[in-house]
């Protein structure tokens, strides 16, 4: 067998499988660098995916669908922002609630809008998804430079590390945190949109299938840096692509063990290469003026 015949498709698969996790993980980096933990990303992805299908079905335009997914992600993260920033509520409770709410609300809306349970009718897929893919990776890499090479990025990091100090020098902690949370929601919405605009044609209940949590894992793995998160997501994607490939060549290993590969790979990588990583200091802490 030609070795390039294997490696080429494997790389391509890795990049496509990684994309939704990767963009969500990069968004999560921005949010958490501003000091807000968001475990509701799973639900936000789900809502984004749903909005994408609805708009795509209504207009027949997948690009408008993706835009709707991104906006929906931003809007839902607003709830999280109000609870975490203004009300100083428990960010983890809020995130859990957003996940539950998204699962319930999307299933409810499928029935209400389309009169069927579980899965929406099929919408058009993008004719050429590569533009979106390039855009996603471009935005993700751009986010790294945004976070580390711009004034706003510096402010986001300052607010996440030491909000009091940031406040003292005149940075509005609340505004910066709103920015961080909304951006993380929009990125997650994009990740969700990718699922229904590129990967599948219809939306079905709970189809995000843990990708939001994988994204959080990628964020932590990447030490809260977008570039690190991109690499971590690619590693997850590679594990997935490899296990998919291994399933096709009939190795004498049970399929379930091949499916475990990306998860075991992640654990090993964490033990072997990453070591101790540290969250932004003020992450998860409400800020009292």
């Amino acid at each position: 067998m030609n070795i390039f015949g294997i490696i080429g498709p494997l790389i391509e698969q890795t990049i496509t499988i990684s994309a939704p996790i990767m963009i969500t993980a990069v968004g999560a980096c921005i949010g958490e660098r501003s000091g807000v933990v968001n475990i509701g990303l799973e639900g936000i992805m789900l809502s984004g995916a749903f909005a994408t299908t609805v708009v795509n079905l209504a207009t027949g335009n997948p690009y408008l669908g993706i835009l709707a997914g991104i906006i929906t992600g931003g809007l839902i993260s607003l709830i999280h922002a109000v609870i975490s920033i203004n009300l100083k509520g428990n960010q983890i409770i809020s995130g859990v609630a957003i996940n539950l709410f998204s699962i319930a609300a999307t299933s409810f809306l499928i029935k209400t809008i389309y009169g069927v349970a579980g899965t929406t009718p099929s919408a058009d897929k993008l004719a050429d998804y590569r533009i979106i893919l390039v855009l996603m990776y471009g935005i993700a890499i751009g986010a790294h430079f945004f976070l580390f090479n711009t004034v706003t990025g510096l402010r986001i990091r300052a607010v996440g590390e030491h909000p009091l100090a940031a406040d003292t020098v005149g940075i509005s902690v609340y505004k910066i945190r709103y920015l961080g949370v909304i951006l993380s929601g929009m990125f997650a919405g994009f990740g969700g949109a990718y699922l229904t605009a590129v990967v599948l044609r219809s939306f079905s209940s709970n189809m995000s299938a843990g990708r939001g949590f994988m994204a959080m894992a990628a964020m932590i793995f990447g030490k809260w840096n977008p570039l690190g998160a991109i690499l971590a997501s690619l590693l997850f994607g590679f594990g997935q692509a490899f296990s998919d490939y291994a399933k096709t060549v009939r190795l004498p290993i049970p399929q379930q063990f091949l499916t475990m590969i990306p998860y075991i790979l992640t654990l090993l990588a964490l033990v072997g290469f990453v070591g101790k990583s540290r969250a932004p200091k003020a992450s998860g802490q409400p800020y009292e003026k």
Partner: protein
Amino acid sequence: MTKKLKEFLPSIIAVLIALTIGGIIMISKGVNPLFAYSDMAKAAFYQASPRAPFLSGLAKTLFTATPLIFSALAAMVAFKAGLFNIGAQGQMIAGGLAATFWAITFRNYILGNVFIVLIIAMAAGFLWAGIAGFLKSRFGVNEVISTIMLNYIIIEFQNYLLNGILKDPASGSTQSPKVFEGARLPLIFAKITKQNLNLGFVIVILLVIGIYFFFKYFKKGYEIKAVGLSETVAENSGINPKKIMFLAMGLAGICAGLGGAERVLGGSAQYAYTEVIMGDAGFTGLAVALLGKNSPFGILIAGIFYAALDVGGQALQLKYQVDKEIVLIIQALIIIFVASENLFKFFTLKRKEK
């Protein structure tokens, strides 16, 4: 007592607001919410099945609540040490699989009795959660990622076993054979209620009381809380935070492992391990722990309440043909409003100023 009551007041208001919003959704579907809610309450606390008019609803609610309380305790114990355990689902699966394996292998009352099987389940839960605890204390691996990864790994392992050595050859679906009679948890009040409520509920109550005393009076409980409050301060006062974190994760795994065993040994799927037997109790437990304000008795009440919504919701679906998602939305809203408890503090403060 009044101080305690004040602490839970926001949760109660949260529940009322969520029920109101749920009521508005029901009105939009042409259902009178007052009738709907009273039917829900009746189904959840009195009669759930026409076959058993006496307290079948309550029995069903308590049966539904049992795994939620086990997994909420698993979230709570870890949380006390400042650890965020998303792995209760996987730890429940570990406990359930180990219990099943043991109880179909040893079909005698010496090795296969229910006490030994429960200890095996506890050990399995301890070990599975212990991996995350070990990686945390030895390598500093963030427990959020490791528990998520361990969940995925054990779900695959479960599927492997259910298609392999644990598969019942006589059954068409992927499930294990029935466990040995002596390994089963006895049903309680089943003659009257015709429900699967079993001794597992008594065990979870004992666990709630035990954990309450553990954190109140025992040195290790105190040390776990100390590490949760501040790792550095704990370390300076002579506590080894790494050991304590491992211990807390292990204890969490024991709680979840017992919960997993209860599902298999307690008859929710006629004493066999099925693919869907754990549902998402491990994840819901996280919400229950938060709703119960991370206190053992709070969790007991929150678990029963959460289960009552489920049981009442099923009745609602049957009687009015409303979607079960309405109940899920109400559950999510309750948690959202609990998270926004400061909203209510804000209003009460405003009132006092006037």
